């Protein structure tokens, strides 16, 4: 079985997990064992996901064009969904809150499912992509994005919770959600910083210019500035609740534009 086939089953695995968890969550009264079962199931899915990425890495070597599976749109989408799943698992473990993973898992599914529309073939690396900085850059950027994605999920839940008291009664406590919004950005932000720095190092080696204000670089900076604003607003000005949740949502929109939107602008980064 190839990694592409595994990814296909995996996408439906995540979807099935979401649907079954949602149904049982809503119908059952005693949810304590439920949490354990679905926690384990999510872990299993994530391990399979990890295996699929490792398999793709191995497959590229068997084909004689070995490289880390982080070099094109297909691979980055698979890795992004893997990181978001990891982020959800970490939040579940640290905060003991199972609704954020439940509402976040659709994002994992959607990203993985979108790969069905993309060319999944393993291709050899063109010269510009043959660099260890590439691996470090893509790795840290997407882990950062995962942190922001988790924050986004908690922020949406918080905003919905504030909008309606009925819904708020089934959602986690607002202060807990607020804490998740903040803490996941606290993890994502340094990772994004590292991602930008390693990207600059790679650009310096490949093209002699660590920063050329091309749309992708600039948008990653814009994303960085929004989250820097978030951290200052939270830590120094005491913002919390609705305002920080909104900032988290805006930040995630910037993340999405940095990842996908820039390909529709003129520039250098459109490998995809």
């Amino acid at each position: 079985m190839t990694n592409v086939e595994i990814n296909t089953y995996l996408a439906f695995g995540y979807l099935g997990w979401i649907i079954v968890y949602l149904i049982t969550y809503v119908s059952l009264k005693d949810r304590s064992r439920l949490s354990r079962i679905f926690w384990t199931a999510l872990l299993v899915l994530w391990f399979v996901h990890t295996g699929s990425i490792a398999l793709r890495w191995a497959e590229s070597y068997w084909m004689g064009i070995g490289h880390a599976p982080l070099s094109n749109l297909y691979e980055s989408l698979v890795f992004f969904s893997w990181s978001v799943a990891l982020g959800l698992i970490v939040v579940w473990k640290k905060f003991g809150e199972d609704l954020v993973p439940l509402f976040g898992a659709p994002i994992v599914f959607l990203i993985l499912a979108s790969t069905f529309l993309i060319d999944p073939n393993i291709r050899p690396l063109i010269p510009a992509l043959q660099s260890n900085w590439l691996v470090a850059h893509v790795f840290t950027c997407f882990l950062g994005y995962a942190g922001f994605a988790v924050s986004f999920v908690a922020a949406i839940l918080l905003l919905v919770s504030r909008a309606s008291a009925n819904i708020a009664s089934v959602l986690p406590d607002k202060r807990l959600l607020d804490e998740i919004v903040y803490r996941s950005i606290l993890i994502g932000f340094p990772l994004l910083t590292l991602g930008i720095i390693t990207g600059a190092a790679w650009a310096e080696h490949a093209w002699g210019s660590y920063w050329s204000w091309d749309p992708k670089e600039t948008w990653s900076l814009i994303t960085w500035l929004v989250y820097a604003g978030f951290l200052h607003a939270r830590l120094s000005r005491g913002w919390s609740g609705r305002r920080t949740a909104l900032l988290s949502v805006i930040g995630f929109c910037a993340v999405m534009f940095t990842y996908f939107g820039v390909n529709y602008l003129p520039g250098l980064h459109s490998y995809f």
Partner: protein
Amino acid sequence: MSKPKSSETGSSESVSILFEIKFFFTSVRTTIFLLFAIAIGAILGTVIPQGESLDRIAIFGNPFLFRLAVIIDLNNVFRSWWFVSLLSLLTLNIFGCLFQRIPLLLKEYHSENTKMSFLLRFSSPLGTSELKDQLLNFGRSIMGSSAEIAESSGTVTCKWNKQKIHLLGFPLIHVGIIVILLGGLLGGLWGYKGHALIREGDTTDKFTLIPTQETQTLPFSITVDDFTLLKYPTGEPKEFRSDVRLSQNGKDIQSGSIRVNHPLTYEGISLFQADYRVIGVKTVKLSFKLSDGALEEKSVDPRQQIDIPGSQSKLKIRSLDPGTVAKGPGIQVSVVGQTREPESSSMYEKDTRPMAVDGTEIRFIGFTPMYATGLQIGYDPGVYVVWLGCSLLVLGFILTLFTNLQRLLIEIKAHEGTSIVVVSGRSRKLRREFRDSIERGLARLAELKRQNHHNQ
């Protein structure tokens, strides 16, 4: 730091304005505003194509918008007056905030500011020295180190401080950002970027500046000895490599290979392998099968007239088709001889029948393109400053995220046959967790009874 009312700052107008300016540069509100303003400015620089003449941007048919676009340098946002000003303001703002906060950090570091965040009181029937041992063990388990113990007039004071280096995190992060901006400024003012297209075998010391397209001269000459192009079986480029020699005043000073992601640097000027062009044909490979069966293969210069072995005639290559037809690449040749009419013919790589001239069978085997290598030339005096700034920034993050300043103070005094224990603590991060772990740990020490004083 809150802003006092203007009536409190004094009557003089100039004092008030100075204060406003100082407040502007030390306020985090300014920081947040500047961060978002720079972000919005940068967005403009991505949606409007940069570096192109404003006439080409369609929406500027409207004269008012056009004037506006000219004033704000909409096609060169990142070097525009307002964008650079925003960056400068941000730098000054960071400086201001650092100046304001560093004295406080220094005080905290030297333990002069020992304001604790919580205070717990206990009483115990045990004597001071017994309690001291238990509490010292407790403190060591929580803080991971031994206490500073002081005894005076019957009171035992035990102090623990953990990871004061945490305080270095905030200044490092912000100094790092300032250093990065400074490095960028250095590079922007004194750095340059250019491009040179050099044919295999050629030497040049000129290059074209980006983006102005002016020609500049390097302090040394570059000779391209060889350009190699390797492709994957699927046809995509695997590696391009230029083997070059640098020379000054006729003397070779450095030689090496330039590959993508592996530049060559001399005296701060770096040469990068950017791209390449095919600008001609270097050699054509032909095979000649003579009438006696002997087989000769020759790589020939396509510009020369070639003697055909086993014949008095000569062959000249007129043009080369790199592969527009199914028969693959091919050459168009003319054959001239003393005893024959000039003849034109074509030979393709995949032709089964050779061209015959006076008993010699000629076949076209292949060709080597003449390449010109595209080198990117860069000089950036600020780049090491930027990397220094990045290191400071990363170090600052590590300290901020992975260390935590914590203090614990336990005072034991004897009081009318019992002992009073006062426990106070402070944690820069995760305050609640710190306090909870202290309270839980102390609750396990059976001989301590919690006192709830109204002034606690």
